[in-house]
């Protein structure tokens, strides 16, 4: 291997660079994810050097190196509690940056020591001001290792060996000057050679360490680890481990040891190399992290909730005791994917998808799913996870808690069930309501059809006296529409004089829920007022008083007729009074002269009878008779006209008493004629006493008069006919000739001459008038020479 290599093999031509305004957090992320931008300013090829993960970035501004930030710096900054997100790299970087000119390092032998002499892990190489690339100690190490490997493989070439020896020696020298802590130990594990930095690292001088066993520099507690690592190295040639080293002063620091087997070309074990890298800060940070995790876990364990912790790879790394108790599992069974065993098959996909999605977004998540508990029962858990960050802002994973919401779920289920039932009920009720509504509409329509078909004015009002409906007849009558009549419109066509009365009456009836009867005038379509008789009835809707339903009839004709009737009655009464007066006056005025004629004629007759001859006497008799008759006539007429005009008294009249009285009055006459009157048990009738007496008197006196040759035998009887009594007065007298039958009741009609039978001929007319004035009927049966029976009806008392 030629030592005069250009530094191609160790230089990185495309180091990571950032601008000064990049935030620290972004830089950390870039370091973490290897996403820092690369230097591409020149046309050099891709880096040949073996580059492991970048542990630094250069801060470049306008082509000039401003500063550098390494892993170590990050650790330091973390410890200083800097706000990574809001700090610019410019404020956190290390500067100035020690660099080398390319002209100084034309060969590897010159380059490596120079580089190592800077004491820095990353050394930029500049061509004057221009950045060429960066050489890092790891890349140097790697190169050395690969060189040694090639040397050890190359056994057959002594020249190579010689060279390798030389190379080795040079390497030693280089190593000596290297800033890394490098030591060479013999096969017994004792220090052969150590470089300055190695010795310094442990607080010794190089000379002091030579000959001492490796155990000297290892913390006692970690010795077993070294021993096993040593074995691994022996087997594989290399091992890397992290242990605590102890200095001469007793200080303990974490270190990364790389042990490499040292074999000669013959394969003989010479010893080993030991490269030490101080990782104390990193390790401390790690430990802190672990401690924090542990504390977190302890806190988690002390909580009664079901807690879990996931790392930044979305793997659940920890479950607290409560969780484990709940699940009846051990931690190792649950971690990673173990906990998903037992998620209900229906919920698995959704659940995990939710967590994954949230994780990708670094968002909080809440999901319900069923998980089997220690008894194998599925319980509903409400799992809430949220991302957690370290103080440096680094995403550290998730922390979550679960709540057993099985009971809630059950309640929710029953609520859902109840809700469903409610919905069903509501739907059912709505259906019923719709149905009822349809029935109602139908019923309403039927009512309307009925109401409209009636000739009456149908109306409906509510409890507030507002009209709610009027039928077609009403609308046609008033010539107004339903809309016009509704509410208070229906009062508009009422006669102003009647309106208040009606309103008051309606109000009272509504208040007392009683029926209404009212007569009032309403204007019809032609503008005329008609009398309407309104009957209103209270109406109820499911036992609730809802107002009135009414029916109005046009009684204008009736009213007019009534009025006409009343007026006619008044007129009639007036007329009757006039007639009465007239009749009275007339009869008296007529009677007065008659009296004179008669009385003086009588006087003359008496005083001068001696001086009068027969003719004169006879003449006087005619005069006197005439006057007499006329007087009777006038009285009869007066009486006749009185019947029916006088205030009719209707009292119970015992006919027995009446007949008896008449019989007594005529007792003298009957004795003379040897006649008799007999009567059956006669009833009591409802009539005026005077008239009844008159009636029976006339009939009986007729019977007595027209007895002929026989003695007068009169019989009075009565027969009940529904609400009337049929009274009969029969005699055994001369009877009535057939040719006279139709004139029997005619006024003044006389069958016989005055000489034969006296009488005015008015008696029966009066009888008929009396009977008819009580709504009765009078007739007779008669046979000449055998007798006559008069029948008449009078109202019964009961």
């Amino acid at each position, binding site marked *: 291997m030629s030592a005069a290599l250009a530094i191609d093999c160790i230089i990185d031509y495309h180091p990571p660079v950032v601008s000064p305004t990049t935030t620290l957090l972004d830089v950390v992320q870039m370091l973490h994810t290897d996403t820092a931008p690369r230097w591409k300013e020149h046309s050099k090829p891709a880096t040949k050097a073996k580059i492991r993960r970048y542990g630094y970035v250069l801060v470049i501004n306008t082509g000039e190196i401003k500063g550098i930030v390494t892993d170590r710096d990050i650790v330091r900054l973390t410890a200083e509690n800097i706000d990574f997100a809001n700090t610019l790299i410019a404020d956190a970087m290390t500067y100035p940056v020690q660099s080398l000119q390319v002209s100084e390092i034309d060969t590897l032998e010159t380059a490596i020591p120079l580089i190592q002499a800077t004491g820095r892990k990353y050394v930029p190489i500049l061509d004057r001001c221009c950045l060429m690339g960066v050489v890092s100690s790891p890349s140097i190490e790697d190169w050395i290792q690969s060189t040694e490997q090639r040397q050890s493989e190359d056994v057959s070439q002594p020249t190579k060996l010689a060279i390798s020896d030389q190379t080795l020696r040079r390497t030693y020298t280089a190593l000596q000057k290297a800033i890394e802590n490098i030591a060479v130990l013999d096969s017994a594990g004792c220090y052969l050679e150590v470089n300055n930095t190695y010795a310094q690292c442990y607080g010794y001088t190089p000379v002091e360490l030579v000959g001492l066993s490796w155990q000297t520099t290892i913390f006692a507690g970690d010795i077993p680890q070294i021993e096993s690592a040593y074995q691994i190295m022996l087997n594989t040639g290399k091992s890397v481990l992290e242990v605590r080293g102890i200095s001469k002063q007793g200080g303990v620091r974490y270190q990364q040891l790389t042990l490499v087997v040292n074999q000669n070309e013959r394969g003989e074990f010479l010893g080993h190399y030991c490269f030490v890298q101080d990782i104390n800060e990193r390790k401390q940070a790690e430990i802190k992290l672990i401690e924090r995790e542990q504390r977190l876990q302890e806190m988690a364990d002390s909580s009664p909730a079901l807690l879990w912790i996931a790392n930044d790879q979305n793997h659940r790394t920890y479950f607290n005791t409560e969780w484990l108790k709940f699940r009846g599992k051990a931690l190792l069974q649950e971690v990673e994917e173990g906990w998903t065993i037992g998620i209900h098959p229906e919920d698995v996909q959704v659940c995990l998808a939710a967590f994954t999605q949230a994780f990708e977004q670094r968002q909080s998540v809440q999901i319900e799913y069923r998980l089997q508990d220690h008894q194998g029962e599925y319980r509903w858990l409400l799992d809430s996870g949220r991302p957690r960050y370290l103080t440096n802002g680094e995403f550290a994973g998730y922390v979550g808690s679960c709540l057993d919401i099985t009971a809630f779920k059950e309640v929710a289920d029953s609520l859902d069930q109840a809700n469903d039932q409610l919905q069903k009920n509501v739907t059912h009720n709505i259906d019923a309501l719709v149905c009822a509504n349809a029935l109602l509409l139908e019923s309403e329509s039927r009512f309307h059809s009925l109401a409209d078909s009636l000739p009456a004015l149908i109306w409906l009002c509510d409890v507030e006296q507002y009209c709610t409906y009027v039928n077609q007849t009403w609308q046609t009558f008033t010539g107004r529409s339903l809309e016009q009549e509704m509410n208070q419109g229906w009062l508009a066509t009422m006669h102003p004089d009647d309106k208040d009365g009606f309103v008051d009456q309606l109000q009272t009836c509504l208040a007392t829920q009683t029926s209404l009867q009212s007569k009032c005038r309403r204007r019809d379509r032609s503008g005329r007022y008609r009398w309407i008789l309104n009957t209103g009835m209270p109406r109820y809707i499911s036992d609730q008083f809802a107002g009135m339903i009414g029916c109005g009839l046009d009684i204008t004709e009736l009213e007019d007729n009534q009025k006409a009737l009343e007026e006619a009655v008044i007129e009639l009464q007036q007329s009757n009074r006039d007639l009465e007066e007239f009749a*009275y006056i007339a009869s*008296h005025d007529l*009677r*007065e002269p*008659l*009296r*004179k004629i*008669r*009385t*003086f004629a*009588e*006087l003359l007759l*008496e005083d001068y009878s001696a001086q009068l001859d027969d003719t004169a006497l006879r003449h006087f008799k005619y005069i006197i008779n005439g006057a*007499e008759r006329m*007087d009777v006539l006038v009285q009869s007429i007066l009486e006749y006209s009185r019947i029916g005009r006088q205030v009719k008294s209707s009292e119970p009249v015992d006919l027995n008493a009446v007949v008896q009285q008449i019989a007594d009055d005529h007792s003298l006459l009957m004795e003379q004629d040897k006649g008799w009157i007999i009567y059956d048990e006669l009833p009591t009738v409802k009539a005026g006493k005077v008239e009844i007496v008159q009636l029976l008197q006339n009939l009986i006196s007729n019977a007595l008069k027209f007895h002929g040759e026989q003695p007068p035998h009169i019989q009075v009887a009565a027969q009940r006919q529904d609400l009337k009594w049929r009274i009969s007065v029969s005699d055994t007298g001369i009877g009535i000739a057939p040719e006279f039958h139709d004139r029997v009741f005619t006024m003044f009609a006389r069958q016989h001459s005055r000489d034969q039978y006296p009488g005015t001929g008015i008696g029966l007319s009066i009888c008929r008038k009396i009977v008819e004035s009580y709504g009765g009927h009078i007739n007779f049966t008669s046979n000449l020479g055998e007798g006559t029976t008069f029948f008449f009806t009078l109202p019964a008392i009961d």
Partner: protein
Amino acid sequence: MRMLLIEDDLGDIELTQNGVKRSQTDIDLDWVMDGSSAMSYLLQEGKYQQKRHPNLILLDLNLPGVHGLKILEAIKGNNTLKMIPVIIFTTSDADGDVEKAYALGANCFIQKPASLAQYITTMTSISAYWAKVAKLPKPL
């Protein structure tokens, strides 16, 4: 028995006289023909100063000027004169007249007879009743 007839119709006066005469009762009949005369007579005024109070008064209702009922009222309104029984003697038999008469204090109401015979009977009855049956107050 002294009787004063207050009547405007001469015919009726004559009839009454005849009736009294033919009844053969000792009625002393005097007559005036109108209301004012009647009052003067009863109050013994003017030409009637010498007249003595009658025991009975026959009063017709249909008098000229002052109606018979008014005279009745006047008579019955006078403390002295009201003692004399007044017989309304008139053609009317109207219930109204009868009631009014009695209401005003008439002692009796008789409808004028229609025939001579009845006249005689009536006078006889009046005399018989008032002279013999009833008791008259002492002459004033």
